[in-house]
């Protein structure tokens, strides 16, 4: 993952060693493999592979992101599903092949930045390199003649270049000019832009930091959801979650012992305009304690405003209705009562739910059906039948079918509370055999046929869906990515350059002139050196003249 830099030989040799087969020893083979892996070309291929490997996860529904879509997809593609399953396409970002790509990329990155850090460390302490013998052979150079002595020119060059924040090295004199030469080889060498490589290294190191932060979150954290009826509460315990996805190294004792009550829920429904029917300004009023016996605090939980307790964040991500339904059995005993969570199925909050009164005697009673917050009915052949006209509960109605018999509650295996198992139950009909359906408004109570009991829809309550997640390492990741950005800015915008100035005396006596050569080398491949050279030259030429005038 390093820039191949021809000016710094031995950094990352792109060229594989040319050897005949059979010549590689184990150690050499390892070395060769390491070089291949850490070469820039391999890193590029790995980067492109990573991009390619990420694609299927956006096309095939992912188990972790949308379990329902994933299972629906499986059902509708019976042939492909097993193949996809084997390839891990329902869980792309946790598959070994995806991990292999980014781990190889990280190894390649480490293999690249470690030697480069060494090289950089040496370069930082080194002096700017001596001037090439022939400056005019460089692509960017300029020459002029002056009457000033070489010493004056070079002294001025040092001043100008230092002023432009170059690191400057001056020739020691006549080392190259040959013994006895009075002029010698007189030059100034300057280099700047050391921060570019620092930025580069910082960027690549920060990627490792981000990865560590991300890994911490997915290994030690968890994410869970729970539905809380307004007026009720929740305490942070695994058993109270509706769904819970722990990281692979997560331990329960790390969970923070907070608890909260949802005391009230505000919502505003739009009744006109293009977004009519939508709701906004959801506010869930919480009272919470951070630990048992701790002080009670209040918080208004809103979208975009999570409640943070320690390392854990609490989010409001949904809401819906919970009709309070009471089922009395044939003996007149209450077999079920309480707010029953109905899950919305569309934007009008037409919702579906079930009641399982398994304690009812003589027979178990099951109810399933829909809730229409603002009941509407469209009759006729083209009619859609019952529907909800609006999401707000203006005229709520529950419409339920009734089942009796074995609800399968004693069967092994867990059962969803949102699905009624009707395989062994019998649907209750009217005495003439036609369909029996309960259509209840709040306060209604209806007697069931066959002396099964009664069903009452007392009132409508609301629930909030609360998402809770503990994500350790999120600040590590944020710090990492911010440092990466900082490094990126350094590595993209700092322009490393070398500038050399050489002054030589030509002619003799009164005709003696000083030839000044200035040359520059851009080491980033994006800069305009001629402009820089022109400014350096102007600096060397003009200011001393005006200084002399002042004197």
């Amino acid at each position, binding site marked *: *993952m390093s*820039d*191949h830099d021809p000016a710094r030989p031995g950094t990352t040799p*792109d060229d594989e060693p040319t050897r005949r087969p059979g010549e590689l020893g184990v150690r050499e083979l390892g070395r060769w493999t390491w070089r291949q892996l850490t070469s*820039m*070309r391999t*890193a590029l291929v790995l*980067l*492109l592979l*990573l*991009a390619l490997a*990420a*694609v299927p996860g*956006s*096309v095939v*529904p992912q*188990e972790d*992101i*949308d*379990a*329902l*879509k994933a*299972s629906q997809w499986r059902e509708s593609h019976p042939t492909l599903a097993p193949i996809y399953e084997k390839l891990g396409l329902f869980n792309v*970002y946790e598959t070994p092949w995806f991990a292999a790509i980014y781990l190889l990329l990280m190894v390649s990155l480490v293999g690249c930045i470690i030697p480069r850090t060494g090289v950089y460390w040496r370069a930082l302490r080194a002096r700017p390199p001596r001037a090439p013998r022939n400056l005019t052979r460089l692509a960017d150079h300029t020459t002029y003649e002056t009457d000033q002595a070489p010493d004056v020119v070079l002294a001025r060059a040092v001043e100008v270049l230092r002023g432009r924040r170059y690191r400057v090295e001056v020739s020691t004199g006549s080392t190259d000019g040959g013994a006895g030469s009075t002029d010698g080889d007189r030059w100034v060498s300057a280099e700047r832009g050391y921060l570019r490589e620092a930025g580069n290294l910082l960027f690549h190191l920060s990627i490792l930091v981000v990865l560590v932060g991300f890994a911490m*979150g997915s290994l030690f954290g968890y*994410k869970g*959801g729970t539905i809380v009826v307004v007026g009720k509460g929740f305490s942070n315990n695994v058993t109270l979650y*509706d*769904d819970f*996805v722990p990281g692979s190294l997560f331990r329960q004792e790390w969970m923070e012992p907070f608890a909260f009550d949802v005391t009230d829920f505000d919502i505003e429904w739009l009744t006109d*305009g293009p977004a009519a*029917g*939508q*709701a*906004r300004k*959801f506010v869930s009023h919480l009272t919470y304690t951070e630990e048992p016996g701790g002080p009670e605090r209040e918080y208004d939980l809103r*979208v*975009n405003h*999570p409640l943070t307790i320690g390392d854990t964040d609490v*989010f409001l*991500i*949904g809401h*819906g209705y919970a009709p309070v339904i009471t089922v009395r059995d044939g003996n007149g005993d209450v077999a079920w009562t309480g707010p029953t969570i109905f*899950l*919305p199925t569309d*934007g009008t909050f037409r*919702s579906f739910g079930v009641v399982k009164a398994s304690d009812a005697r003589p027979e178990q009673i099951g109810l399933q059906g829909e809730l229409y917050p603002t009941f509407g009915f469209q009759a006729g052949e083209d009619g859609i039948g019952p529907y909800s006209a609006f999401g707000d509960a203006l005229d709520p109605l529950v419409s339920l079918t009734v089942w009796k018999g074995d609800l399968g509650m004693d069967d092994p295996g867990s059962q*969803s*509370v*949102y699905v009624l198992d009707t395989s062994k139950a019998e649907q209750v009909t009217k005495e003439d055999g036609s369909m029996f359906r309960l259509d209840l408004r709040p306060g209604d109570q209806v007697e069931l046929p066959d002396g099964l009991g009664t069903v009452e829809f007392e009132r409508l309550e609301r629930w909030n*869906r609360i*998402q809770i997640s503990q994500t350790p390492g999120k600040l590590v*990741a*944020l710090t990492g*990515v*911010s440092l*990466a950005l900082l490094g990126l*800015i350094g590595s*993209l915008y700092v322009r490393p350059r070398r500038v050399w100035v050489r002054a030589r005396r030509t002619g003799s006596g009164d005709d003696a002139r000083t030839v000044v050569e200035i040359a520059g080398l851009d080491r980033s491949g*994006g800069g305009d050196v001629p402009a820089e050279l022109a400014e350096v030259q102007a600096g060397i030429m003009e200011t001393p003249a005006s200084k002399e005038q002042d004197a």
Partner: protein
Amino acid sequence: MTDTQWENLSNQAIFVAGVVYFLALLAHLVEWAALRKIPSYETPTTGRTAMFGRLGVLLTVIATGVHFVALLGRGMAADPNRVPWGNMYEFTISGAFFVSLLYLVLHRRFQLSWMAPLVVGFVLAASMTAVIWLYDPVAPLTEALYSPWLVIHVVSAIIATGAFTLGGITSALFLLKARSERRAAERVEERVAVPAGGVATGEPLGRPAATQEAGGSGPRTGYLARVPDTATLDRISYRMHAFGFPVWTFAVLITGPIWAHEAWSSYWSWDPKEVWAFITWVVYAAYLHARTTAGWRGRNAAILALVGVATLWFNFIGINFFSTTSQHSYAQGVEDGGAVQAAVVAVGPAVAGQPASGSSS
């Protein structure tokens, strides 16, 4: 002015902007048609051809100004007033606006007159696509979008989109120019092989020395002849990408996750929009590396830049039609309730189906 008036103003402004962009495009086409026969080292500064060039730029400035009025009108028409980044229509016209604005800002500095017909054509096509297929009436933002991050996240993503788009156009021209230079070199080799005219560099005789450019040995007339040489194109393209990449990093990997964490409880959840933003990021990272790798710089790097811009615009518009699970669901059009409601709707069945597994939030 009432909200309705603002909305009408916005609709009229985007229409007017479209017409003026079209006129600017025509002016540039006239300019380039007239320049077709003139050798590339002669650049007319007076007369009709030059006038049409200046007219084209002037019209683009006017169109961009009117385009801004259209954006302003969208923001003012909403109740409460907001930044005009609530749905796909608004995102697309904003994206097109920033492409145009960035082009005008950089026009003088990089001498981009050769890019004019392509940029104006692109902006016209993008904004008209938005008007015809993506139009939505002004509506209040969905709940999740009420956040200061809307401004920061979206504006940085759109600016980066503008820079990457200009970089992509430059890279496409780089590939065309490289091909034309290669063909010219082949032709010169054939010619040089017969008479030993001492024209080893392949420069046609009689061309003024002052206009000779390093490596510029392409044809002397036509559009491509006026496009800068490949080295310059490569440098301009790199500058655009070097500007866009950190901004994109900021948008996608810093502000995006921060906002996602606040609104959706998870800073990175492999949402399709996130996945494609990540893919774009990786492709552009590859571009920046390729530019400094032997065997990859030049042509392959330019191809990578084009792949990058393809993933970028696919993510911007295309993914909305391929994926229905995205939380960036403002993109799905009028019938969708919006981010929060969509999330609520999706949560229900997910809980019902698989009580033990992750929710779909």
